[in-house]
Structure formats: structure tokens, C-alpha cells
């Protein structure tokens, strides 16, 4: 995995797709994000890890154009920018796939696929949707992602959570996204469905996209990620290349070493599950390998 990435990196110019330097954002007197730096390269996966309230969603909103940052610099293809709307982000080649607001549940799959970027025929007052092409494109693009759908006319709400994520990813890829932001794509999914989504992340990477994978699960991030940004309470806790960190270290960092030790101690005092405490301690000691529930290890 590393060798292909490294050869790809050599083939690409070093100017990253996106580069954040000491970016910060506050809402009134609430500071949501301070001094966050990261880079997104084509053909690589940058993971953003953090617990609830760590500032992950603020970071996505800045990159996707829903909010503008108010300190630091945000460069797209080496050019300094401040995004003011999702449209601007899309025009700059940045597409975001959100966990729950990716699609309109009652609308057919093909209408969702082309929503906001509809294909049309004719001119002026007679401009109309090119329904046939849109349906065919939706079907073939989804087939390329490995999803075979019986009917692209069915409401997207009838698909499973994983399939819906994949439609949204296929949509972003089709519309020429250069950078793809995935907001907790595996959070609401079971083990198998998560594995499917992780496979699409690698597929998107191999098609030359820069992927930003936001998650709170290091077991999902580690197998697919090339770089890891750890966030906590709006601040960067560390920014690592894959070669510089192990899964155990990542897990320990995320939970916060000291806090985890305290938790293990508390559990022991309360007479909690021995296995859980040992498992937590093993992770702290950096002895645990891949977790049993890791779908992408297969």
C-alpha cells in the first residue's frame, strides 16, 4: 500500500490540493477551532480523528464552504482562498459527503445523483431535463462503484445506509471532485457495511482523489489513511504520517493516555469487566494488534 502511494506522490507535483495553516474559527465568543494545520494531496487519504466536540464538523464546514474561517490561511491548489458557499467549494473541486444530509430521501436515486448539477437539453424557455442520459449515467456510475441497482427510479430512502453513502461518493467522483470530504461515513453503519464504505474510499483514492476521512474510530481510519490529524477540544493534538504512528498509539492518543488510565482504574474499582480493563490497558501499553471488529483488516 505504501509503495503505490509513494510512487504516486512522486508522479504528482508537490503543491497539495488543499493546505490549511493555523486555521481558526470562532462563533461569537465560542472558539470552535484554533491553529489547525493539515494538507490534502491527490491520491492520498487524510484522516481527521477526534471525539465529539473536537471541532471536526467546524473543520469540514470551513473546507466545504458552509462557514468561512477567520484566522490562518486556507490554500486550494496553492492559492489562498476563503470559501463563502458550498457552490464555491464545489467549483473549486471540493465535494463533501455528509453522514445524514447527503441526499433527499423521498426523491428518486437519479434525481438525487444529479441534484444541483442537472443535465439539460434545449435552450431558453424550452430547457428541459435530459432524463434518459441522467438515468443511464447514474446506473453506470453506480455500477463502476460496484453497486448494481434494479431501478434508479426508486426513492433513495429505500437504500441501505452504506448504499446511500456510496451513491453520494459516486456522485462526487462523477462531478469531477478533486478533493472528497467524508463526514463520519461509517458512524451509523454495521461492520460489513463499514467495510464496503472503506473499500470505496480506497477506490476513490486510486482514482486520484484527495480524500479527507473524518471519523472517531481509529480502527476505520488506520487501514485506509496515509496521514492522521488528531483533534481535541478545537485544537490539533498531532499530525502524523502513517509510518510515524501505529494503530495502538493512534487509539491511545485519541482517547487521551492519562484519561484512559484513569478510566481503567475507575472501572477496576467499580468491579467492572476484567476483560475490558485488560483490553484498555493492553491498548495503552501498545500491545494490542488490530481490533476484532476491524472490517478492513480482511
Amino acid at each position: 500500500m505504501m509503495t503505490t502511494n509513494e510512487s504516486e506522490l512522486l508522479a504528482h507535483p508537490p503543491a497539495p490540493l488543499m493546505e490549511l495553516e493555523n486555521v481558526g474559527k470562532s462563533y461569537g465568543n465560542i472558539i470552535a477551532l484554533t491553529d489547525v494545520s493539515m494538507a490534502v494531496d491527490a491520491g492520498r487519504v487524510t484522516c481527521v480523528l477526534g471525539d465529539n466536540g473536537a471541532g471536526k464538523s467546524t473543520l469540514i464546514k470551513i473546507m466545504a464552504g458552509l462557514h468561512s474561517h477567520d484566522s490562518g490561511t486556507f490554500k486550494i491548489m496553492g492559492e489562498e482562498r476563503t470559501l463563502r458557499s458550498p457552490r464555491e467549494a464545489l467549483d473549486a473541486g471540493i465535494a463533501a459527503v455528509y453522514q445524514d444530509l447527503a441526499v433527499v430521501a423521498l426523491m428518486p436515486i437519479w434525481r438525487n445523483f444529479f441534484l444541483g448539477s442537472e443535465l439539460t437539453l434545449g435552450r431558453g424557455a424550452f430547457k428541459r431535463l435530459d432524463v434518459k442520459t441522467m438515468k443511464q449515467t447514474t446506473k453506470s456510475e453506480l455500477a463502476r462503484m460496484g453497486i448494481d441497482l434494479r431501478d434508479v427510479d426508486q426513492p433513495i430512502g429505500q437504500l441501505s445506509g452504506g448504499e446511500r453513502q456510496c451513491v453520494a461518493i459516486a456522485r462526487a467522483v462523477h462531478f469531477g471532485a478533486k478533493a472528497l470530504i467524508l463526514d463520519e461515513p461509517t458512524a451509523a453503519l454495521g461492520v460489513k457495511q463499514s467495510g464496503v464504505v472503506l473499500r470505496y474510499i480506497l477506490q476513490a483514492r486510486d482514482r486520484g482523489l484527495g480524500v479527507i476521512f473524518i471519523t472517531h474510530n481509529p480502527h476505520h481510519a488506520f487501514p485506509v489513511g496515509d496521514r492522521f490529524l488528531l483533534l481535541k477540544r478545537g485544537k490539533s493534538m498531532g499530525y502524523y504520517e502513517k509510518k510515524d504512528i501505529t494503530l495502538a498509539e493512534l487509539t491511545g492518543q485519541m482517547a487521551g493516555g492519562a484519561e484512559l488510565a484513569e478510566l481503567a482504574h475507575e472501572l477496576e474499582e467499580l468491579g467492572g469487566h476484567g476483560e475490558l480493563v485488560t483490553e484498555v490497558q493492553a491498548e495503552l501499553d501498545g500491545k494490542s494488534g488490530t481490533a476484532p471488529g476491524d472490517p478492513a483488516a480482511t
Partner: protein
Amino acid sequence: MSTMSQSPPSLRDERVGQRSLLSGLLGRPEIGALVGAVVLFIFFAIVAPVFLQANSFATVLYGSSTIGIMAVGVALLMIGGEFDLSAGVAVISSALTASLFSWYFSTNVWIGVGLALVVSLAIGFVNGWILMKTKLPSFIVTLATFLMLTGLNLALTRLIGGSVASPSIATMDGFSSAQAVFSNDFTIAGVDVKSPIFIWILLVALTSWILLRTKVGNWIFAVGGDENAARAVGVPVKWTKIGLFMGVGFCGWLLGMHNLFAFDAVQSGEGVGNEFLYIIAAVIGGCLLTGGYGSAIGGAIGAFIFGMANKGIVYAQWNPDWFKFFLGLMLLLATIVNLVVKRRSELK
């Protein structure tokens, strides 16, 4: 449908095709209203045979069109996820604008008609703009405009015309040509047909096309179905919603002009309560109260049900007091049918 799924395996492929066709038909938003309309038509055809005569049918269609023109705009707005409680009085505001302006300044009636269009679109724009700026529910915003317009209609009519009704404009320049457009009687094969019927049919055809075959139509479904998702993929949510309110304004102008030119004066206190008839027509026609689902043709069928119930009771020589009861019953039945059909088609 449950019996089909238990069919022998040898017929399976054929049955699958049949089933998806049937469930496709049942999945249409207006199916409940269509069934209701057919049942109601047969019912009145039996109890009041005069109902089947061409002239009576033209009268039913005319009655339907005066609700239907507005129901089309309101249905689109509801698909877009919003309400307009000011739609009823806004019709009268439009008619009053045209008549009072032309009368007071003694201008050609067409200038008043043009100004009424501007005012109607402006009312829609203001409704939509306040809604998008404040993020208040449209129920509250349009309730406020409803009250304000009701007051303005009465107060300004008395202030300018000195009465509760607007003064007659029948003798003014341009009246007859405007009447020829907005309130004309045609005789087709011996049947007396009024022009609003054609305006209504054109409007339904146009809005159906917009809704199903244009970008804007896609956006209307999207802003009603999931506003945040729509915004995230780059749909101009604000302008789509403002446009929908202006669409209701445009329909209000069409109906207001008909009301004005069908007679030559307007009662300033009219229109109150009609907004519910438009919403009822849209809901009977399969529009979801929560937005994102429905059709223009459904709103038209809802208005047709209204027209049939309204005139059918007269043809059956019943006491018209029963009309509201009928309307309530139709609303309940149609929405239950919609619900059942929707659940079934989702189960497939």
C-alpha cells in the same frame, strides 16, 4: 398484492413485471385523489342525473377552476415545504389594487392590471424573503401577512372608494378587453365554457412540466424534502422558496383578475378562509404537509373534487349546508387512501 407474491414460481418473471407496473401506478402521489374523484363522480351521477349533462359539467369545471388556479400554486409551495395562509386574501388584494388604482387615477384598466401583478408578486416575495431571513415557520409569517392584508383590504378600500366594495370600473377604458381575457364566455358545441377553465388547464400543464422536467422542479422537490441536503449540493434554496411564494402570488393575480372582471367591483372583506380550500385541495391531491412529495395534477384533482362536491349537492337538490361536511369527509378519506397507498408501495 400479497396474493401475487405467493404466485407459483413458473409465472414469476411475468408477475414481477406486472407488480412493478402496478406499484409504480400506486406510487403516484395523486392516486388517492383520482380514486376519490371517480367515486364522487359516479355517486353524483347516480343521485343527480342532471350532473352528467355537458352544461352542468362545465359549471362544475368552472367552480373547480376558481379553486384550482390557486391550488396549483399552493401545491407547488407545499411540495417546496411551506404554507401560505395569506393566499386567500391576497387574491382580493390583487383585485382591489387593479380596480382602486384605475378608478382613483382614471387610467386605462390595463395599467391597474399590470400594477396588480407587481403587487401580487411583491406580496409573494415579501412572504418568502421574511421567511428566509428570519427562519420563522411559514405558518407564522403568512398568518401575519394574512391579517395585515385583511386589514389593508378593508381600510384602503374605505379610504379610497368610501365603501366596503370597490367602485364599479365597468365603464372605464380597457375594461371590455381585460374582461375578454380574464372572464370570457365561450360556446363550444352548445356548451357555455368560461375562460378560467382554460387558464387553469394551461397552468396545470405548465407547472407539471416545470415540476417533472426542469431543473427548478428538481429543486422544488429537494428544498421541500430536505432543505439542508439541497443547500449542501448547491441548490439555491432561498431563491427557490421565494420563487414559490411569488408563484402563489402570480396565481392569486390570475384569480383576482377573474374575480374583478367577472363582475366590475370587488367586496373588500372576501377571500378570508379560502386559503384553507387551496391547502385542502393540495392535500387531497396527495401533497405531503411536510413537503417533498406531491404533484400539480394532484392539486387539480383535489380542486375538481371540491367543485364536484360543491355543485353536486346543488344538483342533487340537497341543502348546501351539507357541503362543508362533505368536504371534511373527502379530506379525511383521501388522505387515508394516500397514506395506505404510500405504505403499500413502500413495502412493494
